[in-house]
C-alpha cells in the first residue's frame, strides 16, 4: 500500500485547474467528466512524478462547510514543500497570488500561506 492520491475540495473545478496549472505551475494529469463533475488531477513537475493532487468538487454541504470554516480561521488545508520558498513567493506574487502569511521562520522550517482562489489556504514550507 502506498500514498498515490491526495485530494482537496475546490469551489469551482475550472477555476481550480487554471490556478493549479497556470499559476502554481503544476501539470494536468487527468481530466474527464464524471457524474456532473470532473475527475481532475495534477502533478508537480518537481515530483514525485506519480503523486496526484485531485481537485475535488465541494458540492456536498459538509465539504463547503469544512472549507469555509478552515478558511475563516486562517488554517491551510494542506502544505506543499518548496526548495526555495522566497523565490517561490516572489514568483507567485508577481502572478497576483494573495498571501495571508509572508515567509516566516518557524524553528527549522520557513512557512508561508496563500489563497488558492478556490476557497482554500495553502501552506508552502521549506525545511
Amino acid at each position, binding site marked *: 500500500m502506498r500514498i498515490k*492520491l491526495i485530494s482537496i475540495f475546490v*469551489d*469551482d473545478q475550472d*477555476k481550480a485547474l*487554471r*490556478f493549479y496549472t497556470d499559476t502554481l505551475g503544476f501539470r494536468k494529469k*487527468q481530466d*474527464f*467528466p*464524471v*457524474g*456532473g*463533475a470532473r*475527475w481532475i488531477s495534477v502533478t508537480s513537475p518537481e515530483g514525485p512524478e506519480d503523486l496526484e493532487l*485531485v481537485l*475535488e468538487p465541494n*458540492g*456536498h454541504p459538509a465539504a463547503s462547510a469544512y472549507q*469555509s470554516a478552515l*478558511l*475563516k480561521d*486562517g488554517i491551510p488545508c494542506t502544505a506543499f514543500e518548496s526548495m526555495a520558498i522566497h523565490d517561490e513567493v516572489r514568483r507567485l*506574487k*508577481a*502572478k*497576483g*497570488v*494573495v*498571501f*495571508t*502569511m*509572508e515567509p516566516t521562520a518557524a524553528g527549522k522550517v520557513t512557512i508561508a500561506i496563500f*489563497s488558492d*482562489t*478556490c*476557497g482554500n489556504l495553502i501552506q508552502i514550507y521549506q525545511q
Partner: protein
Amino acid sequence: MPSSVIGMVRFMRSSYNDQITRGNRRALLRLCRARELLADVRSPDVSIEAAAREASLSSFHFIRTFAAVFGETPHQFRTRERLTAAQRLLACGHSVTDVCLEVGFHSLGSFSTLFARKIGLSPARYQRSLRCSVFVPDWTPHPPSCLLWMGGTEAIAVFEKTLRRQ
C-alpha cells in the same frame, strides 16, 4: 514601473496582497463574511455595496481584493453560487419556475439562458439527464464513493448495474 497592461494589473493586484497580509486574520475574516453574504441565495437582493460594507472596504477595493483572493469577482461568485443551488434543487425534483425564483432570478428566460450557458444544458434538460443517475433524496445524485469517479463512466456504469440487481 510595469510596462504592459498585464504588468499594471499584476502590480495593482500585488498591492492588495499587502493589504490582506498586513490586516491579516481580521481582513480575511471580514472578506469571508462578505462572501457568505453573497452566497446566501435566499437573500438575492444583497448588493455588492452591502457586501463591501461587511468587508469594511469601498466597493472598488472590495471587488479587487475579492477577485485576488477568490479568483472571481463578487458578481461572478454570486452567479455561480445561485446556479449551483439551482442544480441542487433541480436534482431534488423542483420545477424550473420554482427553482428560478428560489435562487433569486426574476425572469425565467434569463435564468434558463444563463443556466444553459454555464452548465451546458437547459434547466429542464439538466433535470431530465439526472433521471438515469442514482438518486439520493434531498441531495445530488452520486455513487456511494466519490473516489469511484477515478474509474470514469465505466466504473459508474458497473456500480449502477449492481444497484439495479439488488
